[in-house]
Every structure is written in C-alpha cells, then in structure tokens.
C-alpha cells in the first residue's frame, strides 16, 4: 500500500459522505399527495401543520401532517392498517388504506 492508494481511499470516503448527505437532504419529501383509488384528491406541503378529514365512498380517514411527517390518525376501516402504519416522511413513502382504496404518497 502506497501513499497515493491512501488518497484514493480518502477521496472515496469523502465523496460517499457527500452523497449520503445529499441523499439525506433530497430524500426528505416536499409534498403530501392523497389518492382516492387512482384519482388525486389533494396535495399539501409536508411542512404544513394540519389535520385533514378525507371522506371516501366507504368511510373516512383522518390524515395528520405534522413535524415533516404524515400519518393517518383515525379511520373507520376494518383492519386499521393505515392507522398503525409508521409516519411517512421520505420520497416514495406511503400510507395505504386498502378497505377505502385510499392512499397517501410523499413526493
């Protein structure tokens, strides 16, 4: 192992850390998009502090946007999977309520 080899290691570590930081920053989502089946029914900034009650064909879901995350706090669906889903915050994260054909996607 020579000195120049060490430079390669250092350079790669530096670039890796840079990309990790960039991925972290860029990965945090900007927008919360609500869907009723395939139709978009709402769009809110993830920076908002708000609670949205979504009325759907088969019932309702209460969506809470708070502290840069989004979750479903309440729903009258049978399985309550959406309510128990971890709060979403990153691009591509979803909260899904299959019984209501309702889902929340972060973009």
């Amino acid at each position, binding site marked *: 192992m*020579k000195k120049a*080899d060490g430079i*390669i*290691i250092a350079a790669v570590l530096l670039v*890796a*850390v840079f990309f990790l930081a960039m991925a972290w920053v860029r*990965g945090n989502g900007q927008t919360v998009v609500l869907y009723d089946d395939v139709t978009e029914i709402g769009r809110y900034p993830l920076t908002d502090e708000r609670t949205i009650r979504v009325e759907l064909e088969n019932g309702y879901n209460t969506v809470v946007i708070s502290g840069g995350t989004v979750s479903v706090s309440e729903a009258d669906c049978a399985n309550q999977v959406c309510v128990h889903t971890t709060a979403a915050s990153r691009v591509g994260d979803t909260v899904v309520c299959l019984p209501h054909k309702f889902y929340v996607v972060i973009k």
Partner: protein
Amino acid sequence: MNKRLARMAMLLALAVIMGYLEALIPVTPMIPGIKIGLANYVIVLVMYLFSIREAVIISVLRIILVGFLLSNLSMILYSLAGAFFSLTVMALLKRNPHFSIYGVSMAGGIMHNVGQLLVAGALMGFQAILWYVPFLLLAGLLAGLLIGCLVRVSYSRLENITGERGF
C-alpha cells in the same frame, strides 16, 4: 499463436466460471448489486501478468458470453459500462508508479460501480439511485482492496507458470 490462443481461452474460461461461481453465493442480500467481483480478479490478474490489451479482450468476451448464456441485454449494458470505466481507470493508474496494485484494484472496483450507477441513473433517473451511491462506492472500495490482495498473493506464484511475458 496457438499458445496465445490456448492461454487466452483458459483465462476466459476462468473468468466466466468465477462470475458463475459468485452468482451462486449471495454475498449481501440487503443491497442489490454488491459483490466481490471474482471475475474481476481474473481481469486484474491478466492485466498484471500480461497487459491491459489482454485484460480488455477477456473482459469483453466474458461479458458477451455470460450475458447471452445466463442473463439479458440490459445486464450486458450494465456490465460493459462497469468494465469500460473500470479498465480505463485501472490502465491509467497502473502506468503511474505512485499507485500500487491495491490502489489500482480499488479504483477499478469503485469505477466499475460508478459505470453501473451511471447506466442505472440514465435508465431510472438519478433521484432513484441517490441512496445507492455511497454504499456502492464503499462496496467497490472494499471489493477492490480484496481483489488487490488476491492478485498480489497469486501474482508471484503465477508469474513463473506464464513463462515469457505478453504471450
């Protein structure tokens, strides 16, 4: 000429088998695409035992052979991109006396992944691959280091077997 052909064929077979063997062993199931690159071991070894020319020939033939036998056209594209970046940078660094086999091999491993990431980014969008970049860079570094060690260990033993240099 026949001797050269026989040696090239043997090394090509070795590279193909190494790649095939590795496909049987899942190294890290967590992040797709991370492997040691045993086939690359043969390529780096050839580069040091003979020259970059032989390494390029065996690398390209291996990719086409394995590509059509075991995988598909998009895998060939990924492999060729990885090999192109890897071999180009290794050839440049090998000429520079400041770098040892470890540095050359590490740069090769890293650039292989950089080439594949560029293809992935071009096909799927760079936002989609951003998370993979740091992990694949580190994986390339470690894999390259390991390959460098392997080549160093086997080089001195194989130097005598190959007889006169450059076929």
